[in-house]
């Protein structure tokens, strides 16, 4: 029974990871831009959310409505101000630029919010759960999983069927050819990053509700998102979703084997996938 419980909790945890990973699947997998500050941006948004909910007494759903546009705006400015200048065949400038940004963000957040862990008050929803047999299923984690599924489906449809999606895929495949056909790659990229960071707005609220956030948590979230994207297969939106599930289940089962082994189990599964199927579950070799 405890393994079934671990499996179910792992899928629910995977829902949260899918929300980190979705934005990264778009930037990493489709646009091939690396953003080392991905996790730190999520933490920044969560801390902004904590302050907003404390100052104005906002409930979690109002907070989502406020925070997601803020997140999208940050993403737009990030792409326009920094990432568009460093996008090139050479990955070094973008790694270094966003690494510097990550260090600056982590320490700036520590100055503003101190190193304490905080969480967002959800008005009771964070404790509510259903009991099925001996297994408790939290209401909030189920909501997180549903939202993650909807976001993944929406993003996949957006990339497949809309003009914006075609323009983005064209820019990622060949910037110059896309520009020749009338696409403005820089504008398309800015919108795509706004979308990717906007989704982090959802992740930030749910992370703040489900557990705690501290200024130094960003790198761990970056690594989880990255592992989910690689496990699922680069460039596949549903792959990132599935990769998040694999990661969540590995960690939850690992925690039940030994509390010190949880996070490590996730890393080991990632390395194993890298060894036996480097293109990921959904990737084309």
């Amino acid at each position, binding site marked *: 029974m405890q393994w079934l419980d671990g499996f179910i909790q792992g899928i629910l945890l995977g829902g949260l990871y899918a929300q980190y990973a979705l934005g990264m699947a778009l930037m990493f997998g489709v646009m091939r831009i690396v953003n080392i500050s991905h996790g730190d941006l999520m933490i920044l948004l969560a801390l902004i959310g904590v302050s907003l909910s404390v100052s104005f007494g906002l409930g979690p759903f109002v907070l989502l409505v406020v925070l997601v546009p803020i997140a999208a705006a940050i993403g737009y400015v990030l792409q326009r101000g920094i990432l568009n200048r460093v996008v090139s065949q050479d990955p070094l400038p973008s790694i270094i630029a966003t690494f*510097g940004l*990550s260090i600056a963000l982590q320490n*700036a957040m520590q100055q503003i919010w101190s190193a304490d862990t905080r969480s967002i008050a959800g008005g009771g929803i964070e404790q509510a759960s259903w009991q099925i047999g001996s297994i408790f299923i939290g209401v909030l984690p189920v909501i997180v999983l549903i939202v993650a599924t909807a976001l993944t489906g929406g993003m996949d449809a957006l990339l497949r069927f809309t003009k914006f999606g075609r323009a983005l895929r064209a820019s990622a495949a060949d910037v110059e050819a896309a520009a020749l056909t009338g696409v403005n790659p820089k504008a398309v990229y800015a919108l795509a990053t706004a979308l990717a960071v906007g989704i982090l707005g959802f992740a930030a609220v749910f992370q703040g509700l489900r557990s705690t956030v501290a200024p130094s948590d960003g*790198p761990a979230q970056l690594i989880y998102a990255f592992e989910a994207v690689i496990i699922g297969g680069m460039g596949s939106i549903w792959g990132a979703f599935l990769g998040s599930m694999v990661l969540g289940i590995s960690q939850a089962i690992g925690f039940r084997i030994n509390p010190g082994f949880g996070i490590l189990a996730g890393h080991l599964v990632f390395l194993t996938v890298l060894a036996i199927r480097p293109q990921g579950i959904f990737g084309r070799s």
Partner: protein
Amino acid sequence: MTMSINAPGGMPRAKVRSQTASGVVAMIIGIGLLAALVAMPWWAGQGTIRSVVELCCYIAIAQMWNLLAGYGGLVSVGQQAFSGVAAYMMFALAQNMGVNPFIAVPLCLIAPAILAVPTYALLHRLDGPYFAIGTWVVAEVIRLLTTNFGYVNAGAGMSLRVMTQYSAHERAIGVTILCALMLLVTVGGTYWLLRSRYGLALTAMRDNPVSAASQGVNVSRLRFLLFVAGAVGTGLAGAIYFMAQLRITPDAAYGPQWATVAIFIVMIGGIGSIEGVLIGSFIYFFADRWFGDYGATYLVVLGVLTLLVALFARGGVWGLVNKVVDAPWFPTRRVLVSGGDQ
């Protein structure tokens, strides 16, 4: 121009100059500084020695990162896996197995060398940015394994109590000699490598890996060797750093601050040059001394500076200097003085 190439009887005699006056002066100063370093226990105080040892470790770690990122195109943010594993190996050899700590420093390098092989085998499948984050995962795995490993006292860390058998003066002599050897191996070794046949291959690979491969450079083999060499050099710095600290914990050994320091030094100083590493190390060292007390604010400035260099001045300080004067300290260019049919 092409006649000389087609001339019968093979290649014409050509004279190539690869040393400059500035290079000779820098070499003499360098040897002088190394001698002063080894003599430190007789002229400097404990505090100064500790600071200089720290500076030497920064130089070595940054130089190894520069070798990987600047020449190999292997951007790593997880080199702390190698410095940490070497330092832990040294502690285990000296404290748990009774090996002389100064002998344990070279012996412990087997650990980063062995770790580098499977790490590279797994991660070389990931290109560019993905490789970078992959190295970070490996560093995290090693940190978590160490935290769960009772033999090295798990998360609580270890103290190097065996060092109490030496007086402070004897310890200083041992550590400064090790530092001098470390600089010879990492900085001197890179210089020698860049001036050798392999240097041409490395420089070609830095400028364009695809065309280097088409000229007969075995890029994947060279990258693998660079990765292992970088791991060993970084490990040496880690072992010496924690020997001077006398104490190690998983969080200190495998913390991302190692990557931060290496990246800052190389980017500010100037990537792809030995001079840049030295300049960057001095800037970081003095910035840390003067502004380190500002804590988080100081690190914000460090992060923003790294960002600005990546955006606007990819060559760093040495790149800016190079635009004004051409006086390399470590000349690696080959200049054709005379050649052809004369």
